[in-house]
């Protein structure tokens, strides 16, 4: 008898695949060498461990299957919600609470002022719209052309700037015309994030909003356009 023969027979028995003669052979081996019983029990424990651990280890290293497309939007939303702003140290939590109280007070005061001043304000001039597209991953199968033309269709008078890096886009986003007498709005279509961001300035105030491209870019652009109209017609 050698170790290999015992292990082959033992693992078959543990897996329930041993034939009657093989089972009898294993029983005979253990009867002649009682010390093998301890090894058999160790092998049983190892087999159970291997059945549990190995599939999980191989799953961790797997390269398939592919992620379903519908998951992307939900996951990117989670990234924005969770990592959209830098983490706040615990020590600052109290300070942040006070800031919120101030902001709430300020918002209430602004609401009261707006309520009385709005009727007195005249309607604003049409907004100046600037449009940009960020495409860090690169275009695929003409999709960028379709998207650019959709942007052109939505804002006919605007030029569409294309960016492949976030630094250049950031410079564009932070460059605003001085002393403007009409609303200025920047529209950014971020292909990788699957979102349309609106950044606006009017009457000394800034506003931003992000629209997720959940199904159709055209629908999202219409939502963005309505939002701009609502914010700049006040």
């Amino acid at each position, binding site marked *: 008898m050698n*170790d*290999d023969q015992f*292990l*082959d027979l033992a*693992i*078959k028995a543990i*897996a329930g*695949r041993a034939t009657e003669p093989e089972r009898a052979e294993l029983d005979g081996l253990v009867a002649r060498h009682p010390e093998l019983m301890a090894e058999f029990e160790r092998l049983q*424990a*190892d*087999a*159970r*461990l*291997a*059945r*549990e*651990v*190995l*599939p*999980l*280890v*191989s*799953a*961790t*290293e*797997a*390269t*398939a*299957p*592919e*992620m*379903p497309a519908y*998951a*992307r939007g*939900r*996951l*990117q939303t*989670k*990234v*924005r919600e*969770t*990592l*959209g702003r830098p*983490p706040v140290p615990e020590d600052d939590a109290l300070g942040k609470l006070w800031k919120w109280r101030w902001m709430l007070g300020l918002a209430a005061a602004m609401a009261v002022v707006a309520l009385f001043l709005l009727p007195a304000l005249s309607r604003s001039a049409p907004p100046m719209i600037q449009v940009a597209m960020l495409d*860090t*991953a690169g275009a695929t199968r003409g999709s960028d052309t379709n998207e650019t033309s959709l942007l052109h269709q939505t804002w006919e008078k605007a030029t569409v700037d294309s960016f492949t890096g*976030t630094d250049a886009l950031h410079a564009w986003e932070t460059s605003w015309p001085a002393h403007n007498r009409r609303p200025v709005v920047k529209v950014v279509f*971020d292909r*990788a*994030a699957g*979102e349309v961001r609106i950044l606006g300035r009017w009457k000394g105030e800034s506003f931003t909003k992000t629209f997720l491209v959940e199904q159709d870019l055209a629908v999202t652009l219409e939502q963005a356009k309505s939002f701009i109209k609502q914010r700049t017609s006040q």
Partner: protein
Amino acid sequence: MDRALACDPVFWHPVVVQMPDLQALQRGDAAAWDMAFPWLWPAAFGAAQVTLQPYLPAEVEDVAIESLEALVEKVRELRSVEELKPLVASIAHNRAVSRLREWFTKTRGEGRTESLEAVQEAAGVDCPDPLAGSPLAVLEQKELAERLSQTLSELKPPQGVILTDFFLNGLSYEEIAQKHGFPKNSVGVYLKRGRETLRRIWGRRGEN
């Protein structure tokens, strides 16, 4: 993203992978996450599938997505990119176990009489109850991730494939030797070392 040629420690196939940039992920860079999610998906999906496939196969994708969402919340705690896959796999595993427990509890609570054996029979599977005495099901997620990481780094090729062939595929020493072109006595050596590695990492609790 840095391209790197990596070697799968378990299956021993060289694969081209794109390692995500951890700092970009921690900053919430949408483009970095867009490339990381498909890279992490097989680990999340596979870990959920290991537990749920025989009982709740329709839940596998949902658990995988939830696990990736949970990973986003934890990403700022990580120190190296190598921790990403073990972490998401451990999250997916623990969520799958919780989902299965809830389902068993609900099934019993509704007074349904079907037994685990009946469910297994209906699903055409023959596997032990994963919730009864499983050494993995009782591990906290952090400990599970650490042990997975350790296994991936210490289970040297070709120990993983040989352990799999012996314990999961039921091949004999001779069949394994023929399949991989090793001398028969080398199979015994690899198997012995692989078993020792598994026992050392997974056979103890609460020592980490």
